[in-house]
């Protein structure tokens, strides 16, 4: 296999082999990496870990419902210029339009002579047309600023990581250009590793018990929002803070359920189904 900068996870972020490969393929082919997966499986953290692992700068572009594709490239601050020309900006040459061109996150990454990592976070929050408006720029990694008649072209193609929570569908033309990875929910084994990263000194038996209770909760029928990795971590934090030890019986009672379930309905479902479960167990005993 040829040689190039390789990402292989960082100490604080456990990553599956497939995901590592996909990150590397996406960087080598110069195609954006699209990450989807259940909320709380570490989509956003991946970009941070990639930047850290490759010792590159991370540029985060948080997408909102009002974000336009143009915002990521550059903004021509007309209002500021108008204001300066009327009231006199201090020490700014109003005649020079370049003083009012501000690069967006993608623009910054292109202009940067050193390779960087760009995170386009939650692309599905934006308008449906948003990804389509970025096609040419992501393909060619350059764009033209008509105001200054300059082209900003990437000297080093940045690694682009895009996350989506699938609130909206992404257009086909956009998808065709991406490398796609779906982060599956970690199985118990991988989850144990993840927990170890966050709580290196946690008692093994306690991890096992907490994990069993957690996966049992996830398996309940009809939950609106299944608890995910981030909720498990929060929950363990709470347990530790409250001084729970291996003696706590999670089968009997789940403390701090609020850290795991964020929906009133789910509370009821959990109470009901867990109740039935305990009764069955008691009967068996």
């Amino acid at each position, binding site marked *: *296999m*040829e040689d190039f900068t390789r990402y292989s996870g960082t100490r604080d972020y456990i990553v599956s082999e*497939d995901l590592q*490969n*996909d990150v*590397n*393929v996406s960087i*080598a*082919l110069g*195609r954006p990496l*699209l990450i*989807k997966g259940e909320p709380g499986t570490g989509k956003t953290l991946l970009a941070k870990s990639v930047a850290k692992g490759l010792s590159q700068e991370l540029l985060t572009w948080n997408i909102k419902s009002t974000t336009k594709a143009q915002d990521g490239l550059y903004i021509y601050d*007309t*209002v500021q210029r*108008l*204001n300066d*020309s*009327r009231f006199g900006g201090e020490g700014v040459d109003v005649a020079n339009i370049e003083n009012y061109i501000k690069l967006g996150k993608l623009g910054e990454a292109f202009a940067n002579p050193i390779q960087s990592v760009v995170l386009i976070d939650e692309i599905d929050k934006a308008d*449906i047309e948003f990804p389509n408006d970025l096609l040419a720029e992501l393909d060619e990694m350059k764009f033209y600023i008509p105001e200054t008649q300059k082209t900003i072209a990437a000297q080093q193609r940045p690694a682009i990581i895009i996350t989506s929570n*699938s*609130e*909206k*569908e992404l257009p*086909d033309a956009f*998808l*065709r250009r*991406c*490398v*796609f*990875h*779906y982060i*599956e929910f970690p199985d118990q084994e991988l989850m144990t590793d993840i927990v170890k990263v966050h709580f290196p000194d946690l008692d093994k038996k306690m991890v096992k018990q907490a994990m069993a209770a957690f996966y049992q909760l996830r398996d309940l029928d009809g939950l609106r929002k299944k608890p995910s990795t981030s909720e498990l971590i929060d929950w363990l934090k709470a347990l530790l803070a409250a001084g729970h030890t291996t003696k706590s019986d999670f089968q009997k009672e789940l403390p701090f359920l609020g850290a795991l379930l964020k929906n009133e309905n789910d509370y009821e479902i959990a109470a009901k189904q867990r109740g039935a479960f305990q009764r069955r167990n008691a009967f068996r005993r």
Partner: protein
Amino acid sequence: MFTGFFFCLRAHKIMVTPTEWLALMEALSRGFAGNSLVSFYHLSRSLLVKTEALFDHYDLAFRDFFTGLEVPPEIFEELWQWLGKETLKKELDADAFKNLPKHDWETVKKMFEERLKEQKEEHNGGGNWIGTGGTSPFGHGGHHPGGLRVGGESGGGMAVKIAAERKFKGYRRDVTLDVRQIKVALKKLRHLRRTGTRMELDIDKTIEQTCKNAGEIDLIFSPEHKNDVKLLLLMDAGGSMYPYAKLVDRLFSAANAVNHFAEFNHYYFHNSIYDYLRPEINGRERISTAHVLKELNPDHKVILVGDASMAPYELFMENGIIDYYDSNETAGIVWFERIAAHFRRCVWLNPMPERYWRHPTISAIKQVFPMYHLSLEGIDDAIKKLTAF
């Protein structure tokens, strides 16, 4: 050698494009799949399949393509006895692995047949004959890129087995439908128009106005883009719809939860629409259909949901209504035609599989409204129809 896989994927409804295929070829030629079929499984999925909804299709295609080993049963029996022996696995280093001759599928098959003719006995651990643990392209438990496995477990991990697990079955779009998925589908139903309060700065007009003002800044604001799609949902709550009640309920909750419609109305009916509609699914209250038609203007997009299956007289005859104490002066089909004539865009979603659509009342209603299956794919198509100009 893999081109067949391209067509196999397309046959499984994964519309791989040549550009994506070329990207895969590039990745392969640069050695990203290593020498393992498992890596190839993941690599080609990442580059060719862009939604988890199609992962299950991919698994099926992969299984079909890479397990399409046609070994005639009679040879299989005999081979099985040779291969049934436990053998120690011989580990190959990377170089030796690379140097093994690679064959394409057709050659492998031909060689297999020839070798089979020559081979007369059990043979394990070698590099030529059909056996276990060797580097010949044939047999099982051995190492050969693109070899033919005959029964047993393969040596270098099992990509096909991963595919056969079909972990992503639950993500298929043509089978499962949850509220969230329907919401995503319904969000495509929109038409943006500037309405509401003036919120956005209109830069062009501001500059123009400021120039006219001789440089005195005059800020001009214009209203935001907002969706102005109005939706009318008409749902069949009749007895034959009972098996689909959950599905219809999900569609309703999704439409209700997508709060980006300018207006959302919904009514229920029994089998067919007659003089009255019901605002509540089990309520006694009724509202005249004619009144609804008068109140709602023609740009409402209409989605009718029902199995469209009933006794023909319920649809075609006056007083055909199924409720014993009720009567209707106008036949159901006439009401459907009136609805189709009043609203510009109507679609019918039918939860029954398409193969049953030859039923007389279904085909009659299909003449009036474009009909789609109540699955995510069907909803997608229906929405395309609703938004088309």
